[in-house]
């Protein structure tokens, strides 16, 4: 087991290194080959604002930072995005997993399709449009702050932060739940069609016991791995939804940095996303053991 974990860890680190170099390659392609910048990604000066005087700098004032300030900024942004991710993934894993299992259990009635249908329909609404409409509705009809940057709570319990996180998490969760129900149900239904299961049924084991003790127990590792594949999609949604809701998270940092051509901002925010994505994949691979 320990060797399995060490091996997967090694693969994860290798993947992160490859993705880091790919990210640098993409930045070089965009800014130097397709754009007209002469700040190559391999030059240290491209990452430090000291070589560019503020008046001619490509960095806006709020992104001219020292190394320590960059890390503090990233920490703040990670906290904001972390709340959103926590809510979204919690909703996806609890609802998606339980309803997927229920759908597979009642597979003869095609329940998984009906359970995922409302979520699939809601997922067709563009997420950025949803958060903007909620912000407008919130402002006009409920006389509450609309976008995430409209009001900052200085004292007292900061419930508004969680409300804002919930608004951004909702479109992510809806799409994720729809996908997760179908993915879990499909995996379990495929396992339920395996010929070895007939042996237990012939022996007199009932359908319910067979499902929970044999099929689900056997596929739980694979289902954890399936669940980990939703994380990159959620992170992708953050990049679109956070700027739309004017929420100061890692996704917003990436878009702001891209607009400002700030290499440190792009690199740090992208690397944060990649680390989360690789970590989620590592968790899935560690738990997954093919029976």
């Amino acid at each position, binding site marked *: 087991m320990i060797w399995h974990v060490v091996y997967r860890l090694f693969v994860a680190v290798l993947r992160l290194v490859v993705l880091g170099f790919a990210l640098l390659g993409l930045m070089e392609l965009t800014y130097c080959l397709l754009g007209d910048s002469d700040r190559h990604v391999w030059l240290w000066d491209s990452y430090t604002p000291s070589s560019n005087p503020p008046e001619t700098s490509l960095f806006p004032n709020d992104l001219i930072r020292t190394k320590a300030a960059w890390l503090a900024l990233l920490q703040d942004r990670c906290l904001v995005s972390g709340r959103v991710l926590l809510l979204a993934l919690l909703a996806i894993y609890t609802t998606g997993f339980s309803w997927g299992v229920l759908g597979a259990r009642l597979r003869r009635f095609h329940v998984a399709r009906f359970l995922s249908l409302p979520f699939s329909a809601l997922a067709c609404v563009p997420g950025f449009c949803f958060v*903007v*409409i909620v912000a407008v509705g919130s402002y006009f009809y409920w006389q509450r702050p609309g976008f995430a940057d409209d009001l900052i709570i200085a004292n007292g319990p900061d419930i508004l932060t969680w409300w804002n996180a919930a608004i951004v998490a909702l479109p992510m969760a809806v799409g994720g739940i729809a996908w997760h129900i*179908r993915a879990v149900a499909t995996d379990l239904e495929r396992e339920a069609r395996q010929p070895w299961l007939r042996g237990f049924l012939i022996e007199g084991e009932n359908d319910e016991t067979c499902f929970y003790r044999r099929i689900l127990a056997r596929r739980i590792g694979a289902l954890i791995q399936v669940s980990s*594949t939703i994380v990159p999609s959620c*992170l*992708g949604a953050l990049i*679109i939804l956070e700027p*739309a809701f004017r929420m100061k998270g890692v996704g917003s940092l990436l878009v702001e940095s891209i607009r400002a*051509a700030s290499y440190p901002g792009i690199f740090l925010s992208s690397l944060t996303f990649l680390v989360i994505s690789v970590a989620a994949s590592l968790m899935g691979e560690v738990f997954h053991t093919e029976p």
Partner: protein
Amino acid sequence: MNRRQNHSLRLLRRIALRLSLIRSRALLPIPYILLGIWLFWGGEMGRDDFAQMYEFHDSPAWKAPNAEHLFGTAANGADLWSASRRTMASSVLLAGISTALGAALALLITLIVTLDSKHQTSRFLEGLAKTGRLVPVPLALVILLATNGNAARLICGMAILIVLPLSSPLHVWIRQRVVSFDLKAERILGFRHVDILRRHLLPTVWARLLGASATYLPAMVLLEMALSYLNLVGQRPSVGLMISHGEEFLIEAPWLLIYPGVMASAVVMALSLMGWWAASILRSGLQAPFP
């Protein structure tokens, strides 16, 4: 007594039987054609017309939704229903081209890798695809479109990114066919590789690939709209850009923001339903990526 039917009657019976067998496949393009005709009726919207819709006037000619204009009118008095439909056509066209290009690229790469006798290439590319799938798709695209983002670059980016999720199932389908009995027999009988590929391998894989591409189309439309919303694809008319411009008038004319979103949701929902139908008929066996 001679009970043999005449030739034309037999031919008619054969055609009827054939049509009943392929009725689902024959009906499949009809909703796509109808949606295409509805969207593209009247041609695409010019950039100047689009810019005039959101020009700031002292006395704007906009009207709230009424019986005459279901979605209301823009600042220059242009009907928003018609404008949303025409910009949506542009988004669907772009997403369609990207998906088709990506699918073709995935098929080409997978064929080269799978039919290659060196097994190491296949394993290497499979590992690379697994690593590539950890990258959130919008992350790569927002960086790629950071400088002078335009439609051509967006199409290339989306096409390349669709290769990764499509290549894995394609690899499995092609392997299934390659190791099947009839293909092995043909190879032993001395048929040429090209003939086997053209007559036996591609027709089956091609149908399933179409089904898989159909499930990816709505996700690509959503992605295109999201990137347009972030102003990363230039000033090309798009629903995402309509919503982005509509935000400037959200207090005076909120319908400029809300109704294009409604239209986008309806079109994406229609494409999703058609995608599921196509995937089930063409037996692609793939889950829709997000919606």
